[in-house]
C-alpha cells in the first residue's frame, strides 16, 4: 500500500529535492508507514540541517522523527536553521 504526501524543502535544503518539483514542493507516493526520519535519510538531507521539521504545520521534535509515521495527504516541510524578523 502506498500513500500520497507532499514533500517540501526550503532555503538551502531545496537542492535536495528530487526532479519534478514545483517550487519547493513535490508530491510523492511513499509506502504506508514511512516515517519522517526515513524521508530525511532517503533524500540525503543532512540530519543537522533538518532543523525545523513540520508535518501539516506542526513541529516534530528530533526525538519523535523516527516514530512519526506519515499519513495520506500529509505535508512534510523541512527548513535548515533560519530566522528573520
Amino acid at each position, binding site marked *: 500500500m502506498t500513500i500520497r504526501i507532499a514533500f*517540501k524543502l*526550503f*532555503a*538551502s535544503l*531545496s537542492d535536495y529535492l528530487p526532479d519534478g518539483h514545483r*517550487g*519547493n*514542493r513535490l508530491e510523492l507516493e511513499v509506502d504506508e508507514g514511512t516515517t519522517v526520519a526515513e524521508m530525511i535519510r532517503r533524500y540525503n538531507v543532512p540530519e543537522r*540541517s533538518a*532543523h*525545523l521539521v*513540520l508535518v*501539516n*504545520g*506542526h*513541529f516534530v*521534535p528530533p526525538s519523535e522523527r523516527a516514530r512519526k509515521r506519515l499519513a495520506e495527504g500529509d*505535508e512534510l*516541510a523541512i*527548513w*535548515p*536553521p*533560519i*530566522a*528573520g*524578523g
Partner: protein
Amino acid sequence: MGWNRKVLRVNLTAGTCTEEALNMQWADEYLGSRGLATKYLVSEIDPRVDPLSPDNKMIMATGPLTGTMASTGGRYTVVTKGPLTGAIACSNSGGFFGAEMKFAGWDMVIFEGKSAKPVWLYIENDKAELRDASGLWGRSCWETEEKIKEQLQDPLVRISSIGVSGENQVLYSCIVNDLHRAAGRSGVGAVMGSKNLKAVAIRGTKGVSGIKDFGAFLKATNDAKKVLADNAVTGQGLPKYGTQVLMNVINEIGALPTRNHRDVQFEDASKISAEAMHEKRASDGKTHLVTNAACFGCTIACGRISEIDKTHFTVKNSPKYWGASGGLEYEAAWALGAANGVGDLEALQYANLICNEQGMDPISFGATVGAAMELYELGILTDEKIGMAAPFGSAEALAKMVEMTALGEGFGKELGLGSKRLCEKYGRPELSMSVKGQEFPAYDSRGIQGMGLAYATSNRGACHLRGYTVASEVLGIPVKTDPLTTEGKPELVKAFQDATAVFDSAGICVFTSFAWTLADVQPQVAAACEGDWSMEKLNEVGERIWNMERMFNNAAGFTAKDDNLPPRLTQEPAKTGPAKGLVNGLAKMLPEYYQVRGWTPGGEPTAETRARLGL
C-alpha cells in the same frame, strides 16, 4: 568607557546648538541608546504632551558599542513621544549614521522646540550648526541625501532625513538613513517634520576612543563574532536568505496574517518569499535579489539588495527605480503583500521603494491598506472615495495608494493617518489590526500565542521587536516552545522584552540574539564601559528600561485596557492550519504577566517593583 560623555542639545526654536556633559549616573543605570535616551526624554517632557507640538522632544542616540568593533555595532535609536500611538516611540536603525555620530564625538542629539522655517543640522566633529533647508523641503529622502552630499562636496557624510511624508506628518512616517535603512515605526518622522527639521548630516573623523580595557574588548568582540560565524542562522541562513526566509515558514504554521487578518495562510506566500527572490524571472532571466548587504560593523549581513523588473507596470516608465536598491525584507513583503492579498513580488518591491524614498513605515502603511481594502470589500469605501477599485489582491491599487500616501494626495491623506483613525472614521474601529494605534507586524497571534501577549504589552504599540517570542515558539531559539499554548508565555515574553532592551541599549542589532545570549553581550559591554557590568546588572537594566517606558505610558494615560488585541484575534478563530479553531488566549496570559512583572492588576508597577528598580 564606551560613551563619548557628550550630548548635543539643539533648540530649534532658538536656533542654538549646545554641548552638554552626558549624565553618567543615568548611563550607569540605563546603559545607552534606547534606555538612556528614554531616561532623558521622560525626564524632560510632560507625558501628556501633544506628540506633534513643539513641546515634544526627539532624541537620536547611540549606545556604548555603537561605532566600535563589536559586530553589528552600527545601531542608533530615535526616541520621542509617538504620534501614531501617543505612547513612547523608540525606533532603531542600522546603516552607518549611528557610527558616524559616535565618530564625531557625540553620544546623542536632543532636539527640542520647532524651527520657524525648514532647517537641517550639520555636524562635523565638534562643530554643529543649523542650515537653511528651504531648497530641500519637498524633496524625497533620496534627493535630500544627494543634495546635501553635493552641497558639502563630501560623499562620505552620513545622513538621516525625512521625505515628503514626514513633512506632511503621515503618522507612520519614518526617518531614513543611508538610503534604505530606517528608524521605522511609530511615526518618528512625523515628529521630525513637525519640528521643521528636514535632515541631520554627520561627518565624524575621530574614531572611537576610551574603551575601558582594549585587550579584553578585542578578545570579547572576536569571541562573539566567532559565535555569530559558527551559528547556522547568523553565519549562513540570514546572509543567504535574509529575513524573508520566514514567509513560507510562518505560512506553513498558519500564522501569516492575510487580508487584514481575515485569514492566517496566504495562497501566494511562495511567490513573495525569499526562495522566490532567488528564482530567475521569466521576463529578463534575472533574479530579483542582487546581493546581500551589511550595516556598519555587521558580520551577519542580512540586508537585501534587489533589482525590480524594468518591464513591470509600476516602473516601466520610471527609470529612476531600475537600479539595485534595498528590500524586500520579511516585514515589508508581508505588510505590502499577504496583508493585502497581493502576490506580485515586483509590485511589493515598488511599494517598498516608495516607502524608502519618501520615508514611510511599510508595516503600518501596508496594514492600513489592508484595512482600507476590507472597508472597500464591505462597501463602506467606494471607488469614488478611494479614486479606484481597491479589492484585496489588487497590485494596481497598492501601487497607486503608496504614491498617493507618500505625496499626500487625495485618499492618501486618509491612509496617512493609519488604520485606527481610518477605521474609526468609517465606523468600523474593530477592523483596525493594531494595538495602541500601531499596526501589527507579520505574525498572527492565533497561531503564535505568545506574540499576542508581546503585542498587547509592547510599550510602543504592536511590534515584534520588543519581545520576539517567535524565536522560541517557531524557530526553536534558544529552546523550542509550543506556539499553540499560552502556558509559560508570560515568563517567556518578559524574558524577551527585558533582554531586547539591553541589546537595543548597547547599540547592537537584536538579530545577534539568534546566536548570542546576554552572556555573549556582557563581556563586550564590561570591557568597553567603566563600572560593573555583570549579568545581574544587565538583566536589571533591561527590566528597569521596560518599567520606565511603561510608567511613561501610564502617565500618558494608558491603562490595562489598552493592553488589548482587536476582537478578530480573540473572538474569531483561525480558519485553517495548525491553529484552526483557536483564538488568542490573551485573557489567560495577561494577569499572569502583570504578576510576573511585579505590577498591580491594573497594569502599573507596584511600589515595591519601582523601589527594587530604582524608579
